[in-house]
């Protein structure tokens, strides 16, 4: 798949998932759709890495999951942020803001 989009930086997928789920609980496919939208415009995400990431986040207790009816009427596994996940998202968001800021400062100095 040749593309001008750049590959997703290491470890950012977790953050993206947390971000998506911070809006509302969603099932794997829903998250995938959302990721697809993002990836169409900005970055390239391998759909295959979504599920290991979801299970990893669940294991870390940042997400909780339950089976319930989806919009099509079929049962789907819905993921939602836990309190710990919310805290983690805040931490990561803060980290990224600071990193981006720092990088910007370095570039600005070079001008």
């Amino acid at each position, binding site marked *: 798949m040749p593309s001008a989009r750049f590959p997703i930086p290491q470890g950012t997928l977790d953050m993206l998932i947390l971000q998506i789920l911070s809006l509302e609980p969603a*099932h*794997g*496919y829903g998250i*995938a759709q959302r990721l697809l939208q993002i990836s169409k415009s900005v970055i390239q995400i*391998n*759909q*295959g*890495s*979504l*599920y*290991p990431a979801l*299970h*990893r986040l669940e*294991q870390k207790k940042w997400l909780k999951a339950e089976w319930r009816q*989806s919009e*099509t009427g*079929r*049962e*789907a*596994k819905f993921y939602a942020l836990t309190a710990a996940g919310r805290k983690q998202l805040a931490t990561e968001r803060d980290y990224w803001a600071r990193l981006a800021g720092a990088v910007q400062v370095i570039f600005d100095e070079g001008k």
Partner: protein
Amino acid sequence: MLKQLFNWLRLRHLEQDLGRELQYHIDRRIDDLTHSGLSEAEARRQVTLEIGGVTQLREEVRDVWLTRWVRDFAYDLRFSARSFRRSPLFTATAVLSFALGIGATTAIYSLVDQVVLHALPVREPQRLVVFDWNGVTASVNAFGTYNLLSYPLCRDLQQQEQFFDGAFCRAATTISLSTGGDHVPTAAEVVSGTYFPVLGIQPTIGRLFTNDDDSVLGASPVVVLSYDFWKTQFASAPDVIGRKVLVNRHPMTIIGVAAPGFRGLDVGEVPSLWIPAAMSAVAIPGFDQMLNRRVRWMQVFGRLRPDVTQVEAQAGLQPWFKAMLADDERRPEFPKITPDRRQRYLGSVLELAPAAQGHSPLRRRLSQPLWVLFGATGVLLALACMNVAGLFLARGSARSREIFTRLALGASRGRIGRQLLSDSILVALAGGVLGTVLAPIVIGALIAFLPRDIAATALRSTLNPRLLLFAVLVSLTAGVLSGLAPAFLAGRRSLMAALTERAGAAPGGLRLRRTIVTAQIAVTVILLVGAALFVRTLTALMAKGPGFDTSNLISFSIDPVRNGYSRENADRLIRGIHEEIRALPSIQSAAIANNPLLTGGSWNGQMTIQADQRISTDREVHLNAVSPEFFSTLGVKIAAGRDFVDRDTLPASEGGLCVAIVNDAFAKRYFNGRSPLGAHVGLGTGPDTKAAVEIVGVASNISYRGVREEWEQAFFPLVSCATSGGTFYVRTRGSRAAAIQSIRRIVHDADPTLPLGAVRTLDEQVSRSLTTERMLAALSGGFGVLALLLSLVGLYGVMSFTVTQRTREIGVRVALGATRLATMWLLLRDALVMTTLGIAIALPSVWALGRVIESQLYDVKPTDPTTIVAAAVLLCSTTLLAALIPARRASTVSPVDALRLE
């Protein structure tokens, strides 16, 4: 780690869940794609492309659940289990080997743990110390086992608050107890008021002793029950508090029940109740010396302050102790002793020893034998491990093709090694489970070797968490150890060499297996020699016997003083019973002794002998007081002089004369072969000891404390010069049961409330006194046989493997004209080399181990050449037999078949 273990357990559920989740994703995606115009096949292809293969995805998620190595290990175990199901005989042999080793080790460890290692269930037991008087005491009397001090000294030590958070003392005794019905001999502990508070024991119900219960002599008739006694005798009735029980016929009030699990300070003598020391005159009838500083009868314990070490406390105590000695020596009632003895008395030191396990003569007696047996089981387990390692090596060589194919396909050597290790760990765990199931039975059998009265109260054959943990650790260690060799071997061999080898010609770690078998033989030699030594010790002791004829001889004890009799009345009662028993037609003769024989204890003291010159015995003489006919009843020869006669037994006031009979050993040590008759002796060694008792006879040596004993003994007639006795020795005529029946009736008629204790035949008594020796002989013998079997199996395995491997070579030899005998010799020589080498390696260890067990032996040296040669011959012959079967097979190899094997 725990999380992963949990995940592993619900793996199936997780897998299903994931399957559903992925299916949902795929179905929805295909739906969407077909809606946007793709054909279904096209859509499916697109989905697969997007998610990159379902199987791979599932693998990745599994990695999240389990982490890599846990998952690999789980697969390994599953793979191992499957492959074991395919070779049940192999698996059974390996599991049984492990079960045997682990079961035996766990069982012996259980006893070691209970008798030797187990700390008291009290608050911070490691801070407890026991006091010991090292030097010369000025005691006027002492009774009990060891570490004996007096009650006033215990009170003194309670004051040493700069070193101790309290001190307490205790003495074991047996009381006659009635809780309403019969008077039953019952174990009790006489304790100071500080006992429970310093130990930190809480009551189950009621209250425990405090200092108030131990402040005024004779003023606190109260007892505390043990939890077990409360449960069995009172059915855990909550209203026992305030009830009265009769202790040696004195009513005493129950004030509380101690915490469950607390069984006193002595594992070998578990008390049913506790009595305050202030009531010692009741607990120990006739004892009125509690406040005498020089009567030693209690063990004193202290609890070290957290900031004080044992060494500091011991050093810090000495100034006070010296002052106490000097002070005491100036008191008017201090006994008169020689200046030299006085000097040594003043030089005495009060020593401290750790006492986290309490105080126990049983531990003293059993700890060395138990450690010896524990060592032997450890060796047995090592043998089992070696056997399993040998089995695995053989299996490994059969599987070498599979293993090398896996290596060729890219498995790492570490991965293959881990697979092999998981094999052995799985087998070891299975063996461990089986062994643990068997362990309680083995422990029960072990306890059966010990005298029943001790074992019943003190030792348990149930499993506890400590024991289970031990079994698991041992199993894992055994599994790893026996898996190491095959795993190591798998990692070492060259892949290329292996794949180009001819089928069936893999060396299979043959050299390693031969080394293992050699080591097994060496270890077996050690065990066999040890077993032979213990068996010879036992047979020597049984052949020696107690020095008198035990057939038709029974003994029993009564203790009227404990039932409230005065000394005189007790004497009269015993004398009456004696007369009646002697008159029975079923009785040949009957006698009484002050102290029972063959129970491990004795009455002893140093003596002064007045012959040509006045000398003191250089060590304590074992003393006893007996009635006339004692020697003739036992069948002991009076070698010179005369036996006691009735006149000797009269009280001094009625013209009784105190005389003495000494034994051969006494005459030999102190009279140098001259006749001791006519010489005079006295008890004690002080300058003012009167040596006024004439020696009137010399008896041949008999066993007093135990069968091993060859010691100086002196006997006095009962009553005239010693207190009364209560142990009867009766030689029966005809039916023993009838005689015992009649005796019971006589005692019952004399006093129905008088308990009849320790009714046994002397054969029984002899065998009781040899329990340790019997346990050592039986167990080490059993271990020796098992070890021999294990190494024979090992050797047989290696030899048959060699034959299979060398079939071609043997075929060629036969084709070239080798005889059957020559072919057999080819293999037997192999076995012989391993055996001889094993024996040669073992000999130095036999010598070294001999020093350890020397003190347990009797009449045989640990380096006894006959024993060692016999063990070597036994091993050589059995190993040759084991090798003969494969060797015969080799000799029947037909050259044509062998060459066709290619």
